[in-house]
């Protein structure tokens, strides 16, 4: 297919690209409109019928979407600064994004190295893998304060403790998928490398790792969003007020007075997660050269 596309005149290709981009934007708008309609429709139906299952619907449990959006452009009643909520949240999102990014980088690097090491030493893998899995069954909320206290006693900046907590959620999918990717190399491709008298390191570097990239990138997509969750959760025990986590704790306390504040914060947090996800998709498109049908 790609060769055929390459032979088409440039004008046709551009027109096709524009058509496909317009189609995607149209689809996005359509999906958002449907979600909006479902939210408001559910709300309207439940209030009209007085249904209380599974929960009572009113403007506290399900505020109007336009109220949530309008709140973004107001000064929140409980907010300290003079800025509108959107500006405050964007500052907070930027702060959380930095923590998440550092956490993601730490976790992804560690996860990748762990996956590589475990793939090379079968015995180590058998001994260590259960603990790697067990590490993820420990609730992050229980670990977070311990990390903050430990690192705090070493005079590490609180935001870095948060990054470490984010990395705790990040490393696991990367480690597991790296390991899986490195072990699923085509047997004949390995035999070819052996017939070229390639050593273990060359087989790893020139064959196993490039072949595992699609696996690694699907883990990075999961991890990118997990790192945001980790950063938000980590902010609470560190009593960091500058990030989205601080806003969430704060708005949670005043939920019954102004539920729109929390919903608006969740919206920004979700958008931040999507931004991280798309960044990985972009990097993958640049780095991984595969047959189109192989790109996840």
């Amino acid at each position, binding site marked *: 297919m*790609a*060769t055929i596309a390459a032979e088409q005149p440039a004008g046709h290709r551009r027109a096709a690209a524009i058509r496909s981009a317009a189609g995607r934007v149209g689809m996005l708008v359509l999906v958002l409109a449907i979600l909006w309609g479902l939210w408001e429709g559910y709300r309207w139906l439940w209030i009209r019928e007085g249904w209380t299952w599974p929960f009572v619907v009113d403007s506290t449990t399900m505020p109007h979407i336009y109220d949530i959006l309008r709140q973004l452009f107001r000064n929140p009643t409980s907010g300290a600064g003079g800025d509108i909520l959107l500006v405050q949240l964007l500052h907070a999102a930027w702060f959380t994004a930095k923590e998440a990014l550092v956490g993601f980088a730490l976790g992804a690097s560690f996860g990748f190295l762990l996956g590589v090491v475990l793939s090379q030493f079968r015995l180590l893998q058998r001994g260590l893998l259960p603990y790697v899995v067990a590490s993820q069954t420990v609730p992050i909320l229980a670990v977070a304060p311990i990390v903050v206290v430990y690192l705090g006693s070493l005079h590490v900046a609180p935001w870095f403790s948060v990054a470490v907590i984010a990395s705790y959620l990040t490393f696991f999918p990367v480690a597991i998928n790296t390991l899986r990717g490195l072990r699923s190399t*085509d047997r*004949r*491709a390995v*035999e*070819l*490398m*052996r*017939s*070229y*008298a*390639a050593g273990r390191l*060359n087989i790893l570097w*020139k*064959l196993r790792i*490039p*072949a595992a*990239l699609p696996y690694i990138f699907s883990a990075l997509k999961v991890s990118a969003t997990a790192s945001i969750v980790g950063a938000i959760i980590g902010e609470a025990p560190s009593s960091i007020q500058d990030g989205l986590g601080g806003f969430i704790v704060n708005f949670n306390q005043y939920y019954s007075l102004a539920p729109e504040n929390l919903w608006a914060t969740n919206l920004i947090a979700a958008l931040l997660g999507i931004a991280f996800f798309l960044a990985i998709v972009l990097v993958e498109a640049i780095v*991984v*050269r*595969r*047959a*189109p049908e*192989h790109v996840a």
Partner: protein
Amino acid sequence: MSVVDIKGLTKRFDGGTVALEGIDLSIEEREFISLIGPSGCGKSTLLRIIGDLIQPTKGTVQVNGKSAAQARADRDYGIVFQDAVLYDWRTVSRNISLPLELARWSRHRRAERVKEMLDLVELIGFERHYPWQLSGGMQQRVSIARALSFDPALLLMDEPFGALDEMTRERLNLELLRIWEASASTMVFVTHSIAEAVFLSTRVVVMSPRPGRISTVIPIDLPHPRTAAIREDPRFFDLVTRVREALHLGIDVDRQLAAPSREATS
């Protein structure tokens, strides 16, 4: 001196299956040897043992007077599988230059050799294509170019054209003969196709299954260089018939010998 010297070779797999038994085979320099036989006769296993990809249970394999392991370390083998097994993330050029990178050739020498190889397999103009942008026949030509790039003494091919259509297959057969005549390589070629084996080879090694043995070796005395016209030569038909009869003989004997036990196991 023989390029390949196999003596008393037996291969028994872990499950107890005897894949090969009592194989003796000597391959001279610049020969084109085809291994032919029904599924399960161990022809691919034999090829893998020659290439030091698996170890024999008994017997010895010498390649250029060395052990197979030493020959592999010295990069004496080029291998081509049924699927091209190209690396998707490398362009055609970089696929061909992979063995050269591993042998630490300079960038300049690599570029020169890749160009020669592209010329040899008639893929000039496709240097920067990725494997998935090529047809199956083109992919297999890249795979052959890669195997030949470092001038291996011995080219091991495991049904390289088995997945291709008949037309492409016959064209690549001709191309392979041309490549073989232009290079100094000795070929060991595994195939299912009698016509292909006769057309390409200097000798056809006919194998029979359970356990894998060599039943006959048939010299192919057709003149070189061979052209497509030789496929219509009466001598070609005679040789095809001889190989076919040898194949059936091997299978019939196997059937008579194994009939009672096979019924019991299946």
